């Protein structure tokens, strides 16, 4: 392999397409370029080899997503790789397998995050990953018949399983007489699981020995539903329901950005400013909730700090309600812009927003007094839930979780979209790698978001009246060229929220795959909590700030 890249050195940040082609060499059977990245088709038994080379020699250290799909003549696994240092550097590794024998080599030894992804691909599409350490279903029950996203799947077929065959997920008591450990089901109904999450835990006294998150209780076929909606209007309401705790606009932006790039739609600058402002309001609301519920997990009761978080979030919710007409499921973005202009009278809206921003520093001080300055809180959160940056990268962690581990990765800056490029703000990172750092990151991000909103409000206030275009002209029916593939992501409240879409020539996507940040962050929970105490497990789970609606989709 003459790649022009020296072994043993720090992988370069910039790798050209030719260098990539040379690195993969004749292991590439063909090219299958995507809109966002060059794509290389490789043999199913070269997966680990190629991914290792791409990671170690070209610096693609972030397995952002794995998409599995079935074509008429083949199955396909697409590994979407990018770099933590520069996420605009992307490459797709396409691994086709035959329909008769869909067996592909596992990527788990190269990227730990492939573990859950390949389980999902097996579960929903039906590809077997050879050498996978834990080849179980992940979203559907163990007894499910068939693979719902495969072509031959009969959606009408009843999923009736006799009682004796049905494995009760909370039944097994993994207790063997020899050991002193205790098996404990945390969830699916438990005060601290932030939704229906089931954590199979093995305890040695109060120490956590083994953690296995069992997800899928909130799986609502979001990908399938998006595949059955038309691009123009029918998909946009769904993203609101992924991360449903007030991150709606951030999620909508993920779809808007992907679909706009896929169909080559321009967005007016004015609409981008409104989008930026709305998205940051959502981020504040989402982070407030994250802080409040984390305090709930550590404090143990509905305490002052929880209620203060709710109180301040309420103001944001009111502003968002004025803007979008909704409190939870906004459905405000449109392809090519937003649904409507700011509410009239505009001055009132600006004043309300400014009032909130002016009051925010005092409230943040209050949080710092009550929460981060509290000594008991500090001894609870310092050095617990340790997530080393290298481990975080292996699990594909993004968002405040990654930034709390010192990974300087924020798509708003690194892969700019919207109006972020033109505004003054900073990416917050903390090097503590513990629960406390993650709290600090969220707290400071609230302040940064406030900065962004303030600049947006200034811009909007002075925007000339005749240039307030909220939507560009978008055809009523969108039919992107067949077999165009794209993976695009935005910085949602929890991290990198990405969408892979493949068009099949109709007005509906051929494949719609959601890259959920919570899914990746949650998969790192065992790394963070094994060897610590039960209360730390709960605190770590809270600090990840997962929303099961987004984990399970």
């Amino acid at each position, binding site marked *: 392999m003459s790649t022009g890249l020296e072994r043993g050195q720090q992988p370069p940040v910039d790798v050209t397409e030719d260098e990539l082609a040379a690195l993969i060499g004749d292991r590439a059977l063909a090219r299958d370029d995507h809109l966002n990245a060059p794509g290389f088709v490789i043999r199913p038994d070269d997966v680990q080899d190629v991914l290792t080379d791409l990671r170690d020699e070209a610096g693609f250290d972030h397995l952002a997503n794995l998409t599995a799909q079935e074509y008429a003549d083949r199955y396909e696994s697409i590994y979407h790789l990018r770099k933590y240092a520069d996420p605009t550097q992307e490459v797709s590794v396409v691994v086709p397998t035959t329909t008769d024998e869909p067996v592909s080599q596992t990527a788990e030894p190269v990227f730990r995050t492939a573990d859950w992804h390949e389980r999902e691909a097996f579960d929903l599409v039906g590809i077997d990953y050879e050498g996978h350490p834990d080849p179980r279903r992940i979203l559907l029950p163990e007894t499910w018949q068939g693979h719902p996203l495969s072509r031959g799947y009969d959606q009408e077929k009843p999923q009736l399983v006799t009682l004796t065959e049905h494995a009760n997920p909370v039944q097994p008591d993994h207790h063997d007489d020899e050991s002193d450990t*205790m098996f*404990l089901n945390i969830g699916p109904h*438990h*005060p*601290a699981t932030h939704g229906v999450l089931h954590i199979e835990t093995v305890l040695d006294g*109060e120490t956590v020995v083994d953690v296995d998150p069992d997800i899928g209780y909130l799986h609502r076929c979001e990908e399938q539903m998006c595949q059955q909606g038309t691009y123009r209007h029918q998909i946009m309401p769904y993203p609101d329901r992924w991360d449903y705790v007030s991150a709606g606009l951030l999620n909508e932006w993920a779809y808007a950005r992907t679909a706009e790039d896929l169909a080559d739609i321009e967005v007016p600058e004015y609409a981008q400013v409104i989008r930026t402002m709305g998205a940051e309001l959502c981020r504040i609301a989402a982070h407030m909730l994250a802080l409040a519920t984390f*305090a*709930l*997990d*550590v*404090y*143990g*009761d*509905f*305490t*002052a700090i*929880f*209620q*203060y978080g709710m*109180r301040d979030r309420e103001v944001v919710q009111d502003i968002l309600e004025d803007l979008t007409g909704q409190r939870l499921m906004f459905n405000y973005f449109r392809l090519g812009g937003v649904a409507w202009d700011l509410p009239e009278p505009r001055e009132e809206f600006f004043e309300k927003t400014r009032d909130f921003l002016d009051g925010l520093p005092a409230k943040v001080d209050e949080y710092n007094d*009550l929460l981060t300055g*509290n000594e*008991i*809180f500090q*001894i*609870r959160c310092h050095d617990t839930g340790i997530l080393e940056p290298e481990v975080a990268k292996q699990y594909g962690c993004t968002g405040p979780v990654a930034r709390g581990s010192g990974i300087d990765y924020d798509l708003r800056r690194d892969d700019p979209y919207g109006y972020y490029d033109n505004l003054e703000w900073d990416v917050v990172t903390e090097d503590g790698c513990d629960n406390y750092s993650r709290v600090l990151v969220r707290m400071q991000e609230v302040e940064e978001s406030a900065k962004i909103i303030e600049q947006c409000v200034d811009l909007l206030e002075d925007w000339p009246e005749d240039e307030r275009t909220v939507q560009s002209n978008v055809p009523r029916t969108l039919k992107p060229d067949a077999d165009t593939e794209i993976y695009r992501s935005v910085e949602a409240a929890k991290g990198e929220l990405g969408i892979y879409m493949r068009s099949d020539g109709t007005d509906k996507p051929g494949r719609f795959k959601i890259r959920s940040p919570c899914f990746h962050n949650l998969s790192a929970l065992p790394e963070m909590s094994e060897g610590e*105490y*039960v*209360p*730390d497990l*709960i605190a770590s789970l809270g600090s990840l700030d997962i929303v099961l609606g987004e984990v399970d989709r």
Partner: protein
Amino acid sequence: MSGATVAGGIDAMQALPAVPLQDTVLLPERIGELTGLDGFGLGGELLATFLAAFIVGNLMLAMTGVAGPWAKRKITAAFTDRIAVNRLGPAGLFIIIADSVRLLSKELVIPENADRPAYDLAPIVVASSALLGFAVIPMGSGIHLADPEVGLAYVFAVSGIASLGLVMAGYASANKYSMLGGLRAVAQNIAYEIPLVITGMSVVIFAGTLQMGEIVSAQAEPLVTIAGVSIPSWYALVNPFAFVLFLVANFAEVGRNPFDTPEAPTEIVAGYQTEYSSVYFVLIYLGEFLHIFLGGAIIATIFLGGPAGPGPAALGIVWFIIKIWGVFFATQWLRSAVPRVRIDQLIEIGWKGLLVLSFANLILTAVIVGVVT
């Protein structure tokens, strides 16, 4: 109730004639006199004692009834920017009735594998151990059931029985969360009972007696007089260090924030009480509140001068209730503002911190008292 006890109380009174705070006649005897029951020998005396116990028990239970469904909600709401119950009656007070009906009419669900006698006994043990403690507390206005010479030791002993109830509840529920909660409760109670008792002992060194009535009387002496206002020698003022130690150990002992690890919602669901419903739940809940009030009563008695306060001695019970509600208020304040410590940190604070400090306090008090007297 014995003659010797009363005589002891009278002796103490004679030593301090200026402040007739402590009643020389205990409640059962007074009732016996008023109703003429004392004329019926032992049977009458027993009946009078039951009557007196009935009055004191109901007073405490009534306070719990106000605290649990209503005051707790209102106080927490005030701390957290909310309104809380306000629909039924003035300031939502009738929620107490509504809640009683609701709680008592719920289905009693008993786990299949529950260890029956223990499971049923646990709530009763938890609730009654606290009630027993009030027997020796001088509440002022003549409400004092008994004043044995070992009063303080008795209070610590009976309130310690609650640990047994918690273990029974945790073990007998056949639930892993309950089990963890029960284990935590034991670990915590053992760790904090010692500092609690040791700090209590430092008060005994001052007062020179374990008898509750005399501890109260001893605090009536003026500490200093500033501009004609006499400040009594409440032990909280004489030895604030012991007061703080005792307060902290007491919060841990009754399992309140930041030491509520045995229940620890969000971690182990509800700990030992996870599997209790309906009446049993009410009993456990009552027991917890009674223990908070008993803790408050002990603090009021040995540190805050018991029923002492401005105004006529007949107002004693009012001052006493204000003092224990003050302690209850503090528990709710902490609940709203302070995070819970982790179980290992809790044990560490108990064994490595409070225990050492409480012994230091005891020795220091002994030395100072020895030098001064």
